[in-house]
């Protein structure tokens, strides 16, 4: 347990020394300026326009930065042989994975809290808190998947590509399912198989389109049910991805 916390602490320190906080602040400042400019162009609903664009940009930026940091950090550690050094110690491999995950999870708190504070300017505290908590869940899932990709694929570019593809797919799964089932009556055999494939993927992947919803900030529609859904999906997805990462690491010959 202590060893995992030490690994987590050094992972977080690495992020801070990589100026991640400054980068987040820079992204925030750029997004606020761009949102303010676009809000001035709007004839009506300027606050809503600003909030919607800001929320979308900040969410994407947070996901991109966390995924890039996780993959980059794991690749650097592999290249420095730091990972091999840690695994050579009298520690179960699980401690290494859980420590890294805990570090990435703590790191995800930075954008969630920072961007959640900005959301307070557009929505009541409850809705902004729900949005921030949901962003945190989304970032934890992305971090867990990026870690799995880094351990499995061992190379930066394939790992980043896989993390990006996973995120896009998890965000559009709901729409893909709707489209597949909407045309089911006239679909040929190929399309029916495709729809079944999408349905199977929908069983496996988290539905990220239910996370960090802009309508919570714009129309204040979020509630406890949404929070419960986000929490349950996060717990299940992070659990599954961690198990997969452990499975892969234990099978690896180092």
């Amino acid at each position, binding site marked *: 347990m202590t060893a995992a916390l030490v690994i987590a602490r050094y992972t977080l320190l690495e992020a801070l020394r990589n100026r991640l906080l400054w980068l987040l602040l820079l992204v925030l400042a750029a997004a606020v300026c761009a949102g303010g400019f676009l809000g*001035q162009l*709007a*004839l*009506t609903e300027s606050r809503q*326009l600003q909030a*919607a664009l800001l*929320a*979308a940009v900040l969410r994407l930026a947070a996901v991109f930065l966390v995924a890039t940091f996780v993959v980059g950090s794991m690749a650097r550690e592999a290249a420095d042989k730091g990972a091999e050094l840690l695994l050579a110690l009298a520690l179960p491999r699980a401690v290494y994975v859980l420590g890294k995950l805990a570090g990435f999870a703590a790191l995800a708190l930075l954008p969630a809290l920072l961007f959640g504070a900005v959301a307070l300017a557009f929505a009541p505290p409850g809705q902004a808190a729900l949005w921030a908590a949901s962003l945190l869940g989304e970032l934890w899932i992305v971090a867990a998947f990026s870690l799995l990709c880094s351990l499995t694929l061992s190379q930066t570019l394939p790992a980043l590509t896989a993390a990006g593809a996973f995120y896009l797919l998890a965000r559009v799964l709901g729409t893909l399912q709707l489209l597949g089932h909407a045309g089911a009556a006239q679909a040929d055999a190929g399309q029916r198989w495709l729809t079944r494939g999408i349905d199977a993927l929908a069983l496996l992947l988290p539905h990220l389109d239910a996370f960090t919803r802009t309508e919570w900030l714009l129309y204040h529609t979020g509630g406890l049910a949404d929070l419960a859904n986000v929490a349950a999906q996060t717990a299940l997805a992070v659990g599954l991805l961690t198990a997969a990462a452990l499975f892969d690491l234990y099978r690896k010959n180092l």
Partner: protein
Amino acid sequence: MNTPARPLSSVPPTVRWLLAAALALQLGWQAGRPPPGARAEALPPAPSAAALRLASLGDPLALSRLLMLYVQGHDDQAGVAIAWRDLDYGRIRQWLERVLELDPRSQYPLLAASEVYGAVGDPARVRQMLELVYQRFGEDPDRRWPWLAHAVVVAQHRLHDLPLARRYAQAIRLRATGPRVPAWARELELFVLEDMDQAEATRALIGALLSSGQITDANELRFLERRLQNLPPPAHPPR
């Protein structure tokens, strides 16, 4: 800790000359290019609703706002202002409908249809926009009645089509029955029947909108106030 850089003299002269020559070439090439010519481009057809839903990555509200700005900015492209009468209103209607489908609670597309694109001088195009407002009003009458109320005024005084104005006013009276719809909106049919003059009717409508407290957006308030100021003075000043 940052390691201090080595002195400039440690860079081989060939590399220094190469850098200077590459920079000069780049600057010379760009300076020699003709200045970009402003060219108006037609609004492309709106993508399908399904394509837009996919492109929104699960966030249709943000995409809806972005598309609205895109459509709004189309008549004032970089360096070229396109007159509304030269715009393809069929395509504008398509885009506004897509924007509304992405976020049915947004008032923006119908405001643009009735107040912005509906201000064109060509009656056929005005009718296209009014018809869009009328059709979409039915989906959420209690929220969308202000834009149909504006359509009533336009139909009555700019198109001089009293039956059309009455049809719209009647729709408000019969379908916008929510508690937040003010009484005057449901009484618009009377205005049509009394056939007030346009400036007075517009003044009454905007004045009522402003005093109802329903308009809270600063930009929209400014927009409506500007319109109010630009109206000709009343023929019979209030006593």
